[in-house]
């Protein structure tokens, strides 16, 4: 997995609550057996009309935001399905960080498995970042995972919380499965005890 440390990029404002995984990547794109190539269909039904033409009002179709690397959104971002196609599409588009007042649980976890940093901040802080993002390509946010800060284009700094283990894995680009397999002894001994205690499982 790609390491995440610091980044400075254009932030696209999406001031909508409950942006769900069906909006992020509609089901017709879940029929792939690959992880790549979904960026072109990110937010497909908000981004294109039925003929495949861009809808000019949609934020990622505006010149200032075509190169966006950050999304600033309303609360409960990523609610709905467990589809990892949602973070795959976000990453494939080039977005590496999503900032919102809150995230749905499964989506939040899925981001960390794909080198994306989801940052939850209080609504009033997200409002400040949203205003900054609305300034377009001239306003670039800086995210520093090690320091756990987001800095606006005006130099205003906000701290955020992140689970230390998730932070470590993201900064080092670690493969979770490899880490867990290194604890195989613990799993073996758990299985031995559990199969005695609950042989029907």
């Amino acid at each position, binding site marked *: 997995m790609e390491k995440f440390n610091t980044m400075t990029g254009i932030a696209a404002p999406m*001031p*909508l*609550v*409950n942006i*769900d995984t*069906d*909006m992020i990547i*509609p*089901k*017709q794109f*879940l*029929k*792939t*057996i*690959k*992880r790549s190539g979904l960026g072109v269909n990110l937010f497909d*039904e908000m981004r294109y009309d*039925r003929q495949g033409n861009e809808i000019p009002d949609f934020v990622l179709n505006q010149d200032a935001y075509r190169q966006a690397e950050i999304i600033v959104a*309303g*609360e*409960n971002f990523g*609610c*709905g*399905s*467990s*589809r*990892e196609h949602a*973070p795959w599409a976000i990453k494939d588009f080039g977005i590496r960080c999503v900032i919102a007042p*809150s*995230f*749905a*649980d*499964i989506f939040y*976890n*899925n981001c960390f*498995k*794909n080198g994306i940093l989801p940052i939850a901040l209080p*609504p009033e802080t997200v409002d400040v970042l949203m205003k900054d993002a609305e300034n377009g390509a001239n306003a670039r946010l800086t995210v520093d995972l090690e320091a756990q800060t987001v800095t606006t284009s005006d130099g205003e700094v906000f701290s955020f919380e992140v*689970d*230390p*283990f998730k932070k470590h894995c993201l900064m080092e680009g670690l493969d*979770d*499965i490899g880490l*867990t*397999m290194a*604890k*195989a002894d*613990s*799993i073996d001994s*758990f*299985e031995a005890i*559990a199969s005695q*205690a*609950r*042989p*029907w*499982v």
Partner: protein
Amino acid sequence: MSPKTLYDKIWDAHVAHEAEDGTCLLYIDRHLVHEVTSPQAFEGLRMTNRQVRAPDKTIAVPDHNVPTTAGRDDPKNMTEDSAIQVAALDQNAKDFGIHYYPVSDVRQGIVHIVGPEQGWTLPGMTVVCGDSHTATHGAFGALAHGIGTSEVEHVLATQTLIQKKSKNMKVEITGKLAPGVTAKDITMSVIGQTGTAGGTGYVIEYCGEAIRDLSMEGRMTVCNMAIEGGARAGLIAPDEKTFAYCMGRPHAPKGAQWEAALAWWKTLYSDDDAHWDEVITIKGEDIAPVVTWGTSPEDVLPITANVPAASDFDGGKVGAAQRSLDYMGLAPGTPLTDIEIDTVFIGSCTNGRIEDLRAAAEILKGKKIKVKRAMVVPGSGLVRAQAEEEGLADVFKEAGFEWRLAGCSMCLAMNPDQLAEGERCASTSNRNFEGRQGYKGRTHLVSPGMAAAAALTGKLTDVREMM
């Protein structure tokens, strides 16, 4: 010993490793797999030369993509991309030696209906699946939640999941439900109250007399939508109904093992003085048959209400409500019972079980539908067979419903069962998101009885008037 919740007890029984910061490896007893969220996980195993650690605890069934019309066991009758995903699951099941119910098997169906039906899901277990509605299995007092594809790969390789413990929330539904009010109305009413993010960070235990009174089918409906409230999982403590449901199922324990299992299962309840981080109490008698008006499962109102205005809401919800009203084509102040319906869908992991079909058939018996299209998609081949045996299929067909084969179908419209642009559907499924049932399709979530009532009148209808 300090008092524990049901969640605490199941959690404690499954921690295989705990790091200093509280990050745990949670052992997984059952891993359910379907065709849409698993191909990349199996591919990951192949690329790293890893095996499935516990193939005997891994169960696969195709459900999301499969057509629900006859002849579907011939891949030529599927769209090419769907056929590729189903073929990939066929191959992965064979290559990795996991349990499998192919499309041609009468036991095939929606993964969350097949698991309990076959006795794979049992009290006190940990159950995961690459699908958010895995919460369904919580009805058995099993800790069950949805995971992403990377986590599917992690569970395949290690039979564990990296987890931190959630907080405990108790949702108590006291007293009795009024006639015409169902498990679906309970679970939707809870979300209407807490919002779609109200459960974030929590595992919910549903309890109280109205929950105890529900059948296992009803309890599965309640837990199924825990995820729509944002919770990691929903739980209901197992009781005699749970044990009776499990007994004799193909993969349930037998003989002495059954007795041993039962002895442990009977300890699976929340202790009286256990700590709850949040408690919500709703009176059962206050719950009405409900319907969603918008594009979020929290947009819940009693069927007797009117369409709200955006100005009825606060904060970010004002814009979201206006967007929903525009998308749904609804004017504020319209009585919900004036809303005309084109299509009725009865099915899904929320309401595709036998009891759901009975409830709908009860309303439909001897009557004809007034909507353009109505379909019943049983949750599994066995539910379908039972419904045929009980004469329910004839009731549906005589009323004008299409009687389909098992699958997820129009709940997420990955197969050909989709709404046309602008079409409005009364649906027993779980999500009313924009585009969920088809591009620009409009979804109103309801109980099976309410769906049947809407089919008969061509409008959203209070089922109590048809009883």
